[in-house]
């Protein structure tokens, strides 16, 4: 398992720890995605708050990955998470996705579009 994607929106600490420990175990590159969900950020002040939250979470994970000497790539995008996840999984040939099953996205769409990939819901 050379590439893992962690969907950081609504991720719990255990999602992050799992992603880090798997990346460490398999010497994988960890892609960490924070998505500005276009459905959620219609108000400017909410977008601003979400952007702050997103970058803070991303750099927090990056620091943890760095301490464990894990290769990491931070991804910050605006759009629909279901579409972004599938596009990234395909374009970077990512083998596994870790996300909170209660994340604010259409989970069945994510599963259906990524049938050949490992999806870890925790």
């Amino acid at each position, binding site marked *: 398992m050379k590439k893992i994607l962690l969907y950081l929106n609504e991720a719990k600490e255990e999602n992050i720890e799992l992603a880090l420990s798997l990346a460490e175990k398999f010497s994988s590159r960890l892609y960490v995605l924070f998505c500005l969900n276009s459905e959620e950020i219609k108000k400017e002040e909410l977008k601003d708050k979400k*952007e*702050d939250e997103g*970058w*803070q979470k*991303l*750099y*927090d994970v*990056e*620091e943890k*990955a*760095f301490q464990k*000497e*894990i*290769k*990491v*790539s*931070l*991804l*910050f995008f605006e759009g629909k998470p279901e579409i972004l996840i599938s596009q990234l999984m395909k374009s970077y040939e990512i083998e596994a996705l870790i996300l909170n099953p209660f994340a604010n996205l259409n989970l069945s769409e994510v599963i259906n579009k990524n049938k050949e990939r490992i999806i870890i819901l925790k």
Partner: protein
Amino acid sequence: MKKISEILVKEGIILDLKEKEKIEAIKKLSKKLIDLGYITDAKEFFSEILKRENLESTGIGMGIAIPHARSKAVKDLVIVFARSEEGVDFSSLDGKPAHLIFLIAGPENKKSEYLLTLAKLSKLLRKDEVRIELNKAKDEEEVLAIISKYEA
């Protein structure tokens, strides 16, 4: 928590970076920090910043790179900046060279402030107008004024 415009030092701004390679660009910016007295051990700091570059791309896309390191060799949280007309390959995921390079150095004991600064700067630089204005800035004062205007 200090503002980015307060942490970015005027004397640490290079508007015509000639270096074309990532390592050379980072060396040039690190040299600024050493000359300005922010680094107590150049070897230690450089080793720390290169370690991170080997593990990840600090090129965040859109022509921006934010190399960074936290080290006991750093006296205080500081940002230096270089602009490159030609661009420097920071292996950004979007494949574009970096024209705006901000190097952040933080001391070991300022982890939260360092991470927040990284987050604030990344957010600020996603704004098209900030990047456009920084690419056009005529001098160091203008760079600081742009940052100050948009982070307000």
